[in-house]
């Protein structure tokens, strides 16, 4: 694979440019190349350059524009460049770069198209290509949807290769040696006589040459880094307390802020800050979007003062109590609310008319993201520019929004993306940046750090969607014959894009993601999406639609398989019509020794979900003890096409499983009087160490395309557990969290 010609047809352009005492290399994409972000802030002697590799007299910097929320994105992106550049990871620094249209995310659009990721048809490819275009024009630099790896895989290796070959050309010029006699390793070009010229020495010369673009990407079997266990570049910092996150930033004269915000997300009718204003360290009390902010000289003092403000809050713009939210969903299974029916195989009406159908209803609650680092942003406003330091997945939206608030040109809004203490989709929102800016505008010239208290973080979260599904199915000769699933939820994309001012036109594929696109051939098979009216504001939560639909679809299938009297794993394999997915199911069977005898009070469940293009199967073993259900073991298999770093792969899948299990067992966000009833981790525990099972993960590489693995481990976890509990106890749990129905130990 990978002559540049092939790449160039897909509108990649390659460039290099001189910068002060150095050179920069990269790939600028699209027919009308986006404006180069590294052009700004360059000193004299600088010229046109492109992103990704930057070599100056100070060292080698790799630009890794996809944000790192903890999933190791910086390391993965650096490894892709370093593989071809021939540098080691201990020789470079990484920098997330400046938000720029040049870093747009193509892979994200792929998942917005209503074609199964297993669908290679011309029309599917075409639609993905068409969808790609608006993403480019909007210049959406988003980290999400497990897209970092697919998006970067060729682009970054190509950038590394172009830089390497151009540096070799520079070495040939300087040394008068033929290029084909030169080799590269550890950041240097090696000459036939044993001498070497470092990339840093060669940078200035390289900058005067046309970049070498006749490139063949290396054969995977020659890779030094990709596919081998790596050490994450941030691992020492994160084990010694020296990793700085957004919340840790400190600047001279910086002030600290806190907010009290309407827990019902309505208006502020009136407030009294008399006490707060007199409290020690308080500088200012300022109204902000959604509530009141306090600027003080210390975070704790600001939080104490924020708590001391008494406010008369307006009502919620959505139903005040849960009953109304659920009713809105149950009322949505109508033709009027029909959003999509991407799958409708066979003759559903005929099949259901002939038999008494098996029917069931499933529910999934709102869930908070609650990454351990609370939301925060530091903003410095001056007359000419705004600087923002924050952990975010949407730097470009922030630029546009802050430009609107401050009236300062977007070019002068500088977003510095910092390491994030988790996200799970939380940092796809930018309300905190808007509020921090509103505060900072009142103390121009002084940086203000706004930190949400954990309670505010919970109260103001844009949660995972609430969702419901209804199954009707029939069986024939011990096999599943009809599978008719309707799913109702409000539109996540509508809610999320609405806050950014973009209308989301057409059906929302997330309403049925993880259900309509499953690789099964069932004679009569229909998946219908119903769009419920907007309720509480919602946002993408690790694995998005599939986080609820993976549970609905797989548990429904499991019920039908049991009703048919078939073996849960064998019947899934029989129904599966996608080779890579079938192998995933077979492999998890082998790993878990499926079918082997368990103790009487034990049970084993399997679940499968294909999400973000990744087939993932999980088998869970539980024991029903007198005190409650204990999860003993989890076996997981996922196929991502190509594993970049097996250590990180294992971490992401097993972390996804813990995330999926913890919320399925123990968590929900409920509203009473318009406000979330859960305010901190004591009411939203996730999973703790004592409940964490032994987890075994295996990765496969049979898939056609490389895929990311941050999310696909999540969806099968909940159904695998529910199916295992059924196997052990005979109890079918159809609603999350399961602890409403059963105790866990």
């Amino acid at each position, binding site marked *: 694979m990978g002559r540049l010609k092939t790449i160039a047809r897909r509108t990649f352009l390659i460039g290099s440019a001189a910068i002060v005492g150095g050179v920069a290399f990269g790939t600028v994409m699209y027919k009308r190349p986006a404006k180069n972000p590294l052009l700004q802030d360059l000193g004299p002697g600088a010229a046109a350059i492109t992103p990704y590799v930057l070599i100056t007299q100070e060292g080698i910097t790799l630009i890794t524009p996809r944000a790192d*929320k*903890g999933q*190791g994105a910086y390391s993965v992106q650096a490894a892709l460049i370093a593989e071809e550049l021939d540098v080691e990871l201990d020789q470079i620094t990484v920098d997330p770069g400046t938000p720029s249209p040049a870093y747009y995310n193509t892979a994200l659009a792929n998942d917005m198209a209503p074609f199964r990721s297993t669908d290679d048809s011309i029309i599917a490819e075409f639609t993905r290509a068409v969808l790609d275009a608006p993403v480019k024009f909007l210049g959406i630099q988003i980290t999400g949807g497990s897209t970092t790896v697919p998006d970067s895989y060729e682009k970054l290796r190509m950038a590394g290769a172009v830089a390497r070959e151009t540096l070799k050309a520079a070495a040939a010029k300087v040394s008068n040696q033929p290029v084909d006699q030169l080799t590269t390793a550890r950041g240097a070009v090696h000459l036939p006589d044993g001498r070497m010229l470092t990339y840093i020495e060669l940078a200035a010369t390289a900058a005067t040459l046309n970049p070498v673009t006749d490139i063949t990407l290396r054969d995977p079997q020659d890779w030094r880094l990709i596919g081998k266990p790596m050490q*994450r570049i*941030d*691992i*020492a*910092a*994160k*084990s*010694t*307390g*020296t*990793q700085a*996150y957004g*919340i*840790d930033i*400190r600047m001279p004269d910086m002030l*600290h802020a806190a907010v009290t915000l309407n827990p019902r997300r309505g208006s502020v009718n009136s407030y009294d800050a008399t006490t707060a204003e007199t409290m*020690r360290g308080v500088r200012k009390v300022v109204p902000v979007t959604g509530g009141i902010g306090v600027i003080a000289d*210390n*975070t*704790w*003092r600001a939080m104490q003062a924020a708590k001391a403000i008494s406010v008369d809050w307006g009502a919620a713009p959505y139903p005040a109590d849960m009953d109304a939210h659920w009713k809105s969903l149950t009322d949505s299974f109508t033709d009027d609310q029909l959003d999509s029916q991407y799958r409708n195989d066979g003759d559903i009406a005929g099949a259901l008319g002939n038999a008494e159908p098996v029917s069931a209803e499933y529910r999934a609650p709102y869930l908070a993201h*609650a*990454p*351990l*680092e*609370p939301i925060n942003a530091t903003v410095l406003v001056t007359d000419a520019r705004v600087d923002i330091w924050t952990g975010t997945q949407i730097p470009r939206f922030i630029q546009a929004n802050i430009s609107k608030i401050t009236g300062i040109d977007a070019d002068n809004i500088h977003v510095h993306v910092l*390491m*994030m*203490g*988790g*996200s*799970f989709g939380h940092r796809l929102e930018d309300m905190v940046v808007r509020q921090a800016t509103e505060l900072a505008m009142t103390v121009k010239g002084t940086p203000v750090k706004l*930190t949400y*208290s*954990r309670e505010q973080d919970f109260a103001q979260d844009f949660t995972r969607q609430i969702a419901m599904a209804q199954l009707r199915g029939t069986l024939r000769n011990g096999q599943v014959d009809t599978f008719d699933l309707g799913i109702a939820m409000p539109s996540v994309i509508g809610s999320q894009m609405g806050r950014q001012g973009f209308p989301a036109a057409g059906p929302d594929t997330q309403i049925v993601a993880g259900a309509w696109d499953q690789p099964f051939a069932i004679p009569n098979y229909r998946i219908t999406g119903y769009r419920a009216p907007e309720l509480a504001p919602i946002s993408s939560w690790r694995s998005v639609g599939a986080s609820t639909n993976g549970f609905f679809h797989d548990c429904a299938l499991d019920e039908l398989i049991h009703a048919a009297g078939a073996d849960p794993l064998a019947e899934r394999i029989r129904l599966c019509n996608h080779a890579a997915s079938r192998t995933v199911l077979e492999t998890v069977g082998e790993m878990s020794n499926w079918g082997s005898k368990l103790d009487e009070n034990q049970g084993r469940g399997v679940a499968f979900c294909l999400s973000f293009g990744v087939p993932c199967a999980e088998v869970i073993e539980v024991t029903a003890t007198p005190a409650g259900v204990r999860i003993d073991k989890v076996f997981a298999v996922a196929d991502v096409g190509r594993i970049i770093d097996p*250590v*990180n792969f294992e*971490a*992401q899948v*097993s*972390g*996804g*499983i*813990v*995330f999926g299990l*913890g919320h399925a067992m123990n968590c929900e966000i409920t509203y009473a009087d318009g406000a979330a009833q859960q305010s*901190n*981790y*004591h009411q939203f*525990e*996730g999973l*703790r*160490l*004592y409940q*964490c099972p*032994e*987890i075994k993960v295996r990765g496969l590489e049979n898939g056609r395309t490389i895929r990311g693995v941050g999310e696909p481990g999540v969806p099968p976890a909940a159904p695998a557990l529910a199916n295992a509990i059924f196997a052990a106890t005979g109890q079918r749990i159809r609603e999350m969290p399961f602890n409403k129905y059963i105790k866990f130990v």
Partner: protein
Amino acid sequence: MQLTVNGTAYQVDVELDMPLLWVLRDELGITGPKYGCGIAQCGACTVHVEGMPVRSCQLPIGDLEGEVTTIEGLGTPDALHAVQQAWIDHQVAQCGYCQSGQIMAAAAFLDLNPDPSDQDIDRALSANLCRCGTYPRIRAAVKTAAASLKGA
């Protein structure tokens, strides 16, 4: 008032009820201890006071008695504590935000219980929350650290 953190004496002028966490982070600029919940539910703020693990978000500075050690004082990138070394060897951290607290809790625990069973580990470290789900590697790293501390 005066306090000693990682062997250095500091003078601060703060309210007696300000939690140690915020004195460390905002007054002294020692940011290894993290704010996660503020109510003793996550353990991200764990430090040692005279070697004992303490939730610094819960300790009013006025009640502090004894020397404070934070993750920065436990070991440094150039001189790692055995627990930190084990955390690196097992590549425990994902986002890493909980790990200062996990490491401080584990180090104090192994001091008291050098030869822990799996159940001891579960019991001792379940009060520290990890939203990224690094628990399997935490278990493995604690065992490695225990072995290396015994060998030392």
